[in-house]
C-alpha cells in the first residue's frame, strides 16, 4: 500500500427502513485503473455510488480522495471534488437542447450571461469524442434512448473529472455504441482517470476491468485482479449459493392448454408481437432496457393497450383497454416498480392484499363478509408467509420481500389465470427471492400461467420454461429452457439475425 488511491471508501454503511443497503463496505480505485463492481440488483452498487455522488449521506464510514478526507453532502460537492457520475436513470431535460443538457449546472457564462456559441462548440466536441453523431442544438426529447444515454456520457466527460463512475452505462446501447464506449474507457484510463465501472454484463467487465469487486446483500465479498477472477467465480460470489437449488424444480409434465395468446399485437412501442402462454407454464421475457419488454407487460394488462392484433384469453378474443378490463379477463399485474405502481404505502398490509378483490366486487358488497373479510385474507397472508407484526400495520413498514408477497396474495385472492410479473425480485433479499420463485412455480403448477419480464438474466434462465427475447419492440427470438446467458444476450442485441460472431471481443 505505497500508492495513495484516487478514491478510497472505508467502512461505508447505509440503512433504509427495513433494509441494510450497505454494511461496512471498503472500496478503492487508483488513477489509471478501471475497477468494476459486480453484484445482483439490490446488492448495494447503486447506493454506494449515490453516496460517492453526494446524493446520500452514509450512516458510517469515510471517503478519501487522494488521501484527503471529504464529506460529500450535495452532488455539487462531489462534482467540485472531481467525481463525475453517469447515472443509471437518465437525468436529462427533455425540452432543452443537447448542449444545454450537457452543460446543465456548469453553464458557460460571462457576468451571468450564457455563452451559447461556445457551449454548442464544446458540446459538439464532446459528442464526437463519445462517437455520437448528434446535433448539439437539437432537442433531447427527439433523441432515442440510446442517443440520450450517449448525451449523458458526454455530460459526464465535460467535468474532466479525476474519478469517473459509470453505472450500467451500456444498458440501452447497441453493440456498436457499446464497443465505442469501451474503447473510450480505455482511452480515459490511459489519461490517468480512475474509473469505477458498474455492470452485470460479464463480457464487458472482462473486456475493460483491471480489478473486480463483488457486492452481495450490501456486503463486499471480495476484490481481485481481473485475471484472478474468472466469470464463474464472480457469478458464484454474486449469487452466494449454488443456483441449482435456488430455483424450484420444473414439473416433468408438459404444458397444458393455451391460456393467453397474442397474434400480431402492436402499438406505439411494440410491433408484430405473437406468442402464447400455456397452463402450467412460466414464460420469460428478456431484452435490453429499451427493447420494449416493459411495454409488452403494460400492453398485456391494458396500461398501454395494443392498438392492433388479437388477444385471446382461454380461447376467447378479448379487448383489453384498461387494467380493470385485464383484471376482469383474469390477467393480474405485478409491476416492477412496487413503490410507484403496486403499493398503497400508507394502507395496511391487509388493505393492500384486498385491493383487487374490493375493486372488482359489486359496489354494495359488504366489506366484512366472505372473501372480503379480514379473517379470509389474513389466512392467505399467513399461507404466503408474509411477515408482519400485525396485518393491520402499514405496508410501507415491511421489507421489500414481504411487500412483494403481499402483492402476490392480492392476485392469488383474485384467482387470476395469468400473472404478468415484472422484475419479480428487484430489491428483494435472497431468502425472500427463493420463496417468491417457489410461489411462482406453484402458481403455474396449479394449471395457470405466468409471463415474467426481467432484466436479471440468471433469474429468467432459472425460472422460465422458455424465454422470449425482445429487441426494438419485436420478439427477436425464442429460447427453450436451459438457454445460456450468451444466447439471450446475442438475441437482445439484435445480432442473431446477422452473421454470428463473438459479442464483445
Amino acid at each position: 500500500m505505497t500508492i495513495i488511491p484516487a478514491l478510497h471508501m472505508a467502512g461505508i454503511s447505509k440503512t433504509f427502513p427495513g433494509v441494510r443497503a450497505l454494511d461496512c463496505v471498503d472500496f478503492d480505485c487508483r488513477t489509471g485503473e478501471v475497477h468494476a463492481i459486480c453484484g445482483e440488483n439490490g446488492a448495494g452498487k447503486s447506493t454506494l455510488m449515490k453516496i460517492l455522488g453526494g446524493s446520500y449521506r452514509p450512516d458510517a464510514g469515510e471517503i478519501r480522495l487522494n488521501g484527503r478526507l471529504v464529506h460529500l453532502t450535495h452532488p455539487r460537492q462531489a462534482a467540485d471534488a472531481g467525481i463525475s457520475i453517469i447515472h443509471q436513470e437518465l437525468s436529462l431535460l427533455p425540452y432543452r437542447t443537447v448542449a444545454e443538457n450537457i452543460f446543465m449546472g456548469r453553464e458557460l457564462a460571462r457576468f451571468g450571461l450564457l455563452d451559447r456559441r461556445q457551449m454548442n462548440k464544446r458540446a459538439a466536441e464532446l459528442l464526437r469524442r463519445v462517437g455520437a453523431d448528434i446535433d448539439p442544438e437539437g432537442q433531447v426529447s427527439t433523441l432515442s434512448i440510446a442517443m440520450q444515454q450517449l448525451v449523458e456520457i458526454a455530460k459526464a466527460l465535460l467535468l474532466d473529472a479525476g474519478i469517473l463512475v459509470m453505472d450500467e452505462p451500456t444498458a440501452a446501447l447497441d453493440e456498436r455504441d457499446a464497443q465505442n464506449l469501451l474503447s473510450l474507457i480505455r482511452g480515459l484510463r490511459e489519461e490517468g482517470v480512475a474509473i469505477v465501472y458498474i455492470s452485470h454484463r460479464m463480457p464487458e467487465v472482462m473486456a475493460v476491468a483491471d480489478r473486480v469487486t463483488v457486492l452481495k446483500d450490501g456486503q463486499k465479498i471480495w476484490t481481485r485482479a481481473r485475471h484472478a477472477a474468472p466469470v464463474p467465480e464472480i457469478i458464484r460470489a454474486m449469487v452466494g449459493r449454488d443456483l441449482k437449488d435456488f430455483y424450484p424444480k420444473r414439473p416433468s409434465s408438459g404444458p397444458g392448454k393455451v391460456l393467453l395468446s397474442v397474434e400480431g399485437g402492436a402499438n406505439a412501442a411494440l410491433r408484430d408481437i405473437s406468442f402464447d402462454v400455456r397452463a402450467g407454464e412460466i414464460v420469460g421475457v428478456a431484452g435490453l432496457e429499451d427493447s420494449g419488454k416493459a411495454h409488452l407487460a403494460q400492453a398485456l394488462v391494458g396500461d398501454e393497450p395494443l392498438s392492433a392484433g388479437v388477444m385471446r384469453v382461454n380461447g376467447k378474443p378479448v379487448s383489453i383497454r384498461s387494467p380493470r378490463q385485464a383484471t376482469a379477463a383474469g390477467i393480474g399485474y405485478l409491476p416492477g416498480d412496487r413503490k410507484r405502481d403496486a403499493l398503497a404505502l400508507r394502507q395496511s398490509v391487509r388493505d393492500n392484499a384486498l385491493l383487487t378483490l374490493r375493486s372488482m366486487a359489486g359496489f354494495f358488497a359488504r366489506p366484512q363478509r366472505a372473501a372480503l373479510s379480514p379473517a379470509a385474507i389474513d389466512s392467505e397472508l399467513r399461507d404466503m408467509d408474509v411477515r408482519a407484526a400485525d396485518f393491520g400495520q402499514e405496508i410501507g413498514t415491511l421489507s421489500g420481500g414481504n411487500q412483494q408477497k403481499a402483492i402476490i396474495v392480492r392476485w392469488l385472492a383474485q384467482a387470476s389465470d395469468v400473472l404478468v410479473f415484472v422484475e419479480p425480485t428487484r430489491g428483494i433479499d435472497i431468502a425472500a427471492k427463493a420463496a417468491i420463485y417457489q410461489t411462482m412455480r406453484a402458481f403455474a403448477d396449479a394449471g395457470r400461467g405466468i409471463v415474467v419480464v426481467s432484466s436479471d438474466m440468471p433469474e429468467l434462465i432459472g425460472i422460465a420454461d422458455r424465454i422470449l427475447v425482445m429487441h426494438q419492440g419485436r420478439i427477436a427470438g425464442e429460447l427453450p429452457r436451459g438457454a445460456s446467458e450468451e444466447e439471450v444476450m446475442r438475441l437482445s442485441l439484435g445480432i442473431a439475425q446477422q452473421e454470428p460472431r463473438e459479442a464483445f471481443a
Partner: protein
Amino acid sequence: MSSNAISMEPASFNHRKGLPIAAVLAILSAGFFVVIALATGESAQLSLQGIVGLLQRMVALGLVAIGQTFVILVGSIDLSVAALISAVAVLASLLMQGDPAMILPAIIACLGLCLAVGLVNGALVAYGGINPLIATLGTGLIIQGVLAASFADLQGAVARQFQVLAYGGMLGIPYSVLLLALLALAAAFILNKTLFGARIYAVGGNPDGARLAGIHTERLVLAAHVIASLFAGAAGLYLAARLQSGTPWIGRDGIYDLESIAVTVIGGTILAGGKGGVAGTLAGVLLFASLDASFNMLGIDAFLKQVLRGGIVIAAVAIHAVRYKGHVA
C-alpha cells in the same frame, strides 16, 4: 442507431421555442378582437386609442402572470398572489395617504412585504417540502384574513402623482403598458439568456437531474417564488394607482390567482415545469384581454362573464393537462 427506432416523442415537440405557440395565440386573439369589433360596429375599438385600451387591460394580469410563469417553470405554483395584490394595494394607500413624499417609501415597503411573502412561500415549498398548492393557499388565506380583519373600512388613498402610473403616458402609450413591456422583456431576457434562467428550466424539467448536476434546486425554487411575489406586488401597485385606493378584496375579485395560472398554461408553459416562457404567457394574457373587451362590446352581463371565464379557465387548463398520462388529484 438503426433508423427504425421506436417510442419517440410525438413530432409536435419539434417546434421547440415556445414562440410559435405564442405567435399563433396572439394572432388568434387579435383576430377575434377585430372580428368582434367589426361585427358589433365598434370600430372605434380599432383606433390607436382602442388598441392602447386593450393593451392596458393586459397590465395587471400580465404582471402577475409573468411572475407565475417563473414559479410554474420550476415546477411549483403560487395561489397566494391574489391576496398579496390586495395587501400591496392596501399597504400603498395606507402609507401614502395622498402624500407624494411617501410614494417612494410606500413602494419600498410594499416590495419589502412581497419579498417577505415570497421568501415564506419559497421556504415552505423548497425547504419545508410542503405541496406548493397548499402552502401558497395557506399563506394567501393568512394574508386575506389579516386584511379583512384589519382593513375592511380603509381610510387612505395613494398620492395623485402616483396615479400617473395608471393614467399618464408618453407618445400616447400609457406608462403602465411600458412598464409591462419592460418587465416582460427583462423576464424573457433572464429566462433565455442568463445562467439563472437556464437553471430555472433545469430545476423544473428534471429536479433530480438538476440536483445530480450540482444545482442547488431549493435556492432556485425560493428565488422563483420571490420573483412571483414581486411581480404580484407590481400588479398591486398598479391597481392601487388605477383605483386610487386599495381594498382588501381587489385581488380576489380579479381572480388573479386562477387567471394567472390559466394564461401561463394556455401560453404553453407546462404545469410540471421546465418548458414554456414569457412570450406564450403574454399571448395568453392578450387572449383574456381580447375576450374581456369582446364581452364588453357584446354587452354580456358581468355575472355571465364570470361564468364564461370560469369555463374558459377549466377548458384551457384541461387542453394542456389532458396530454399527460397519469393521475392528478
